[in-house]
C-alpha cells in the first residue's frame, strides 16, 4: 500500500515536471524549431513530408547543410537552410534530436 502511494506520488511529480518544463521552453532551439512544425508532422508516418523529431543530431546537421548547398534538391528546404547560420543549425539539430514523436 505504502509502495503504491509512493509510486503514484512519483508519477504525479513526473507529470507535473513534464508540463512545467515543456511550458517554459523558449530556448533558441525551441524557437527556431517552431518553424519546422509548419510542415513536418510530429506523429511520424509518411505523409509526403518526413517526421524529423528524435532523429540523430549529426544526421540532422548533415541534412540541413546538404539542403543549404543544394546537394539535396528541394527548394523549400533550400530556402529554410539558407536562412540558418551554423550556430542556428546546431541548435535546431540539438533540440529536434532530444524530442520524442507524439503518439499517433
Amino acid at each position, binding site marked *: 500500500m505504502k509502495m503504491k502511494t509512493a509510486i503514484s506520488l512519483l508519477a504525479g*511529480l*513526473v507529470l*507535473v*515536471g*513534464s508540463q*512545467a*518544463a*515543456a*511550458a*517554459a*521552453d*523558449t*530556448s*533558441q532551439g*525551441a*524557437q*527556431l524549431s*517552431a*518553424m519546422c*512544425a*509548419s*510542415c*513536418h*508532422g*510530429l*506523429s511520424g508516418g*509518411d*505523409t*509526403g*513530408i518526413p517526421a524529423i523529431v528524435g532523429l540523430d543530431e549529426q544526421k540532422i546537421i548533415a541534412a540541413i547543410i546538404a539542403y543549404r548547398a543544394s546537394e539535396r534538391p528541394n*527548394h*523549400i528546404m*533550400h*530556402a*529554410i537552410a*539558407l*536562412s*540558418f547560420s551554423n550556430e542556428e543549425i546546431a541548435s535546431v539539430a540539438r533540440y529536434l534530436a*532530444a*524530442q*520524442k*514523436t*507524439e503518439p499517433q
Partner: protein
Amino acid sequence: MKTWTRREFGGLTGAAMLTALTPRKVLGQSKARVVVIGGGAGGATVARYLAAGNSGVDVTLVEPKRRYITCFFSNLYLAGLRSIESLSHGYETLAQRHGITVIHEKAAAIDPVAKTVGLESGAKLPYDRLVLAPGIAFKFGGIDGYNEAAAQVMPHAWNAGPQSELLRRQLESMEDGGVFVLVVPPDPFRCPPAPYERASLIAYYFKQFKPKSKILILDAKDSFKAQDLFEDAWARHYPGMIEWLPAQFTGGVMGVDVKARSVLTAGDTFKAAVANVIPAQTAGELARQAGLADKSGWCPVDPVTFESTLQPGIHLVGDAIIGGDMPKSAFSANSQAKACAFAIAAALTGSEHFAPHLFNSCYTFFAPDDAFSNAINFKPVAGKLKAVDTFLSKLDESPEIRRRAAHQAVGWYAAFTNDLFG
C-alpha cells in the same frame, strides 16, 4: 508540441520542479494576461505558442465561430476533391491540451487605455498584451451593384464556409456549356495565386463533368505571379477552356447585374452561368475601428515583434498587416505568429527572444496530381519585411516532381493544421 524525455527529467530536482510549476504564484504575482482576437491561422498559432512556450502567461482566444474552415485547400473542395468536413477544425485541443481559454463570442471594442476588450455580451476582458488576427474584410462599393446581398447570388467564396458551399452548389447545378466568370481583385489580397488555382481546379471539374463549359477570368491586374507556369498547365490540361483577360484589355470590372447574372467591364457585358466575384480587400473591421490601420486600410507593425506602430501593447499578425514582401497567406500568418508569440513572452516574462526566421511556402494545384511549390525567406530590413531568397518551381520540371509536390501538399495540410489546432 514538446514531449518529455527521460534525460531531461533526470536533470531536475524536486525543488526545481516545484518552482517551475508555479513561479509567479510562488513569488506572489499573478500571471500576465494575453488576449488573442481571431482564431484563424495567425491567431490560433499565437495562442498556442504563447500557451506552450511560457507558463507565466494566461492566454484567452476570442473567436465567434466554433469550427474554423480553412481557406487553404478550399479550391479542392470546389472541384469536388475534398469534403468541407476535412477542412473544418475545432478549438477543443487548444483549450484542453494547451490550457487556452477559448471564448466563442465576437469582440466588439478595444479600450487601449484601460487595456480591455469588450465582448458583444458586454463582458470585459483585461489584458497586458493584446493580439489581433482579424484577417480581411471586403471593400464593397468598388464594383457597382456588388454588396453582401449580391454575394448571396454571385459568391466571392474568399472566406471558406457557407460561401464556398454556395459556389459549389452553383457549379454542380450549372448546365454543361455555361460560362464560369471569375473576377480577380486588385493587389493586395489574400493568397495571391489562389484565383488562378481556383480556375485550374474548376476546369478540372468541368473537364470531367461539363466539358463544353468555359472559364473566363476578368482580372484587375495586367499580369500575375507564376503566370507562365499557369498558362503552361492550362494549355496542357485544359486546352481552350480558360481565358484570362487583363485589365488593360477590358478596362477593368465596373459593375455587376445580379438579376441578369452578368459582369460589366468598361466596354462589355459578360453573361455568366456562374459568377464568382472576389472584391477588393482591407484589414478586418475591428482593426480599422480600433485605429490600427493606416490610410492604406492595412495595419503597420514592427517586423520583429509585430507590435502595432500606431498603438503600443497591441500586436497584429496575418492578412491584416502591412507585410512588406510577405504575401497574405496562412503560412505567412503562422510564421509571423510564432515570432510574435516569442516576442510577447520575452516582454512579459523576460524569456530570451532570438532573431525570428520568417518564411512563406505554398503548394498550388493545377490538377490533383500536378502541383507547384514556392518558398521564400524574409528578413526585417529598415522596418520592413524583405524577401531574401525566393524559389519557385520551374517550367520544365518533370511530371514526377509535380506529382510529388501534390502528394507533399496533402501531408503539409495535415501537419500545418495540426500546428494550428492540434
